[in-house]
């Protein structure tokens, strides 16, 4: 290789015949190297991703509001798993607390996304009922963020997960404006749009998303929509589920059981 390389560099004084000869020798070698080496590397890594076929999956998440205790472990695990900046204005998932008084509007809060739990000091007898609602990207089938992205950096994968190609995103933030759920933020250092991926790096290996794995009450259910016996199919069958802001026709793949009309 090195000899050939040296020959190739010595263009001065090389006639056409020599040059073509050099090309004929080096190009096939190079093509072989580029074709074989990545495959060898991939085989060495033994990545199960290779066997992953997105067209065979259709993911969804369901959230049982009755089960959520607002511990915030899901939001915390998400930040750890996905290197989400720790500042309280960047979240891939967060938990909202709803306190509905006997009369009047519900009061909603989400201090640090619920990661540190919820303060109880103003928990008074005027509260009619209270509940927690975990929020995340709804992975809409008819996603406004996908529609508006000017370069197609945000796209829906064949398995139904809405993803952002961070090497392609121009950082215009139109998707952030178009998302009705406030599920996106601009990554402060990478300067690209970021949001929940259902922990794509995990689910493609057959593992559950981090938030689902750490939830102590199984308030989050994740799985395949197509399979009759999958946990999510069972959940959908035995619960009255709804989606957020259904009137916007975004067709979310995150379903809620027990969501009051206050939830939006």
């Amino acid at each position, binding site marked *: 290789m090195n000899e050939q390389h040296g020959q190739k560099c010595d263009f001065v004084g090389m006639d056409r015949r020599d040059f073509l000869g050099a090309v004929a020798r080096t190009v096939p070698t190079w093509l072989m190297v580029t074709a074989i080496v990545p495959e060898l590397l991939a085989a060495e890594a033994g990545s199960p991703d290779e066997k992953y076929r997105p067209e065979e999956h259709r993911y969804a998440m369901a959230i049982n509001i009755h089960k959520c205790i607002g511990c915030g472990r899901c939001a915390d695990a998400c930040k750890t798993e996905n290197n989400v900046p720790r500042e*309280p*204005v*960047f*979240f891939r998932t*967060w938990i*909202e607390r709803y306190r509905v008084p006997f009369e009047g*509007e519900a*009061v*909603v*809060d*989400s201090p*640090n*996304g619920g990661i540190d739990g919820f303060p109880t000091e103003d928990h008074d007898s005027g509260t009619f009922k209270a509940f927690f609602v975990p*929020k995340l990207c709804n992975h809409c089938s008819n996603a*406004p963020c*996908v*529609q*508006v*992205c*000017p*370069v*197609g950096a945000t796209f829906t994968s064949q398995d139904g997960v809405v993803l952002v190609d961070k090497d*392609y*995103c*121009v*950082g*215009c*933030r*139109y998707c*952030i*404006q*178009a*998302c*009705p*759920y*406030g*599920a*996106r*933020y*601009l990554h402060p250092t*990478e*300067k*690209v749009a970021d949001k929940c991926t259902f922990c794509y790096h995990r689910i493609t290996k057959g593992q559950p998303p981090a938030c689902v794995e750490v939830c102590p009450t199984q308030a989050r259910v994740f799985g395949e929509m197509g399979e009759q016996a999958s946990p999510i199919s069972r959940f959908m069958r035995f619960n009255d589920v709804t989606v957020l802001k259904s009137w*916007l026709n975004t067709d979310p793949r995150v379903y809620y059981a027990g969501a009051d009309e206050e939830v*939006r």
Partner: protein
Amino acid sequence: MNIAMALQSFFTELPSVTGYMYPNEYELHWSVLIVVYPYLTGLVAGAFILASLERVFNVKALQPVYRLSLLTALSFLLIAPLPLLAHLGHPERALEMFLTPHTASAMAMFGFVYAWYLMVVLLLEIWFDYRQHIVRWAKEKKGALKWFYSLLTLGSTDLSEKALAFDNKAGKIITIIGIPSAFLLHGYVGFIFGSVKANPWWSSVLMPIVFLFSAIVSGIALMLLVYMVSSMLRWKTINMPCVNKLAEFLFYAILVDFSLELLDFIQRLYESEESIHILSQMISSRLFISLIISQIILGTIVPLVGLGLARFGRMPDEMRRMIYLMAALLVQVGIFATRWNVVIGGQLFSKSLRGLTTYKLEMFGIEGLMTAIILMVMPFIILFVMTKLLPPWSEGEKDIPVPPKPHATQVGQEA
């Protein structure tokens, strides 16, 4: 012109939130630069539509501002994409919007609408309009200027009657194409906002139309300002029929624009959807100064009354000019406030419809007040240079070196 609003925001403490915002909504994503962008494109579209009034609709009184309007439109158009570029998280990837556009995206069309407007409409029209002069200047000027004008002729140096007639015809056809293009340019900017269904403040079918008419208002007011100030600076008398006509058009345009905005407002109020509570709260608190005071009272009602009195009442010309100037200035404040209220207003409330945040305008950052001011001053510098290279003045023979007859009469005769 945005100083009052800027100061208002600047002296506000850290972004304070009332009610509940989704955590990712605390910080505004579209800054003052995205306010500047529709403001600049609005001026482009408005100035061009004004120019087309003279050219296509034969409003001869506007002849003194015809070429000035074209040059102004071009100066502002050249700067218009810069606020967008400066705002991108990855400006180095900006060209991807041209090279690999996502056709479902309204924003991806920006490049094409912009390129069409710049290349096909403005540059061509200006070139055809100035061609005969460019050819003459190429012959008469010396040194670098000679080269510059020779290059500008693009090798087309024919000055025969037939060639000139063709220039005129081509210019007219381009203007006719240009009117819908100008509508497209700014209607499209309105669509970028109006089509966001997630945002009840933006989502309105009237948005492109309101943008368009406010663009016409801002463009006419800008030309009134540029014409009057440039005449004063050049120590020329102001052509009263021209400014009267401008004031008249401005008056009507404001009337239409205000009616449309009122219609939008009344419709929202009457429909009273679930967003109405948070939006009313926003108008009466966060947007009070920029919407009620700046946009409606100072930017619309006061100029409307002033223009009405000055145009249709009896008063000395001196007084008239003063009122026109003040009205045009106020209209600029008002239109900037309009853009502010759309862009910033649309991000001050939570999409949970439960809370309001504040916009903290930074001073010196890339998306700060200084950048915005620089971007709004730059078109005037470009315009100044352009008026030196391509003098648009109709009565200023001494500025234009050779033409034996002022071009003005020719255009007037042909039109």
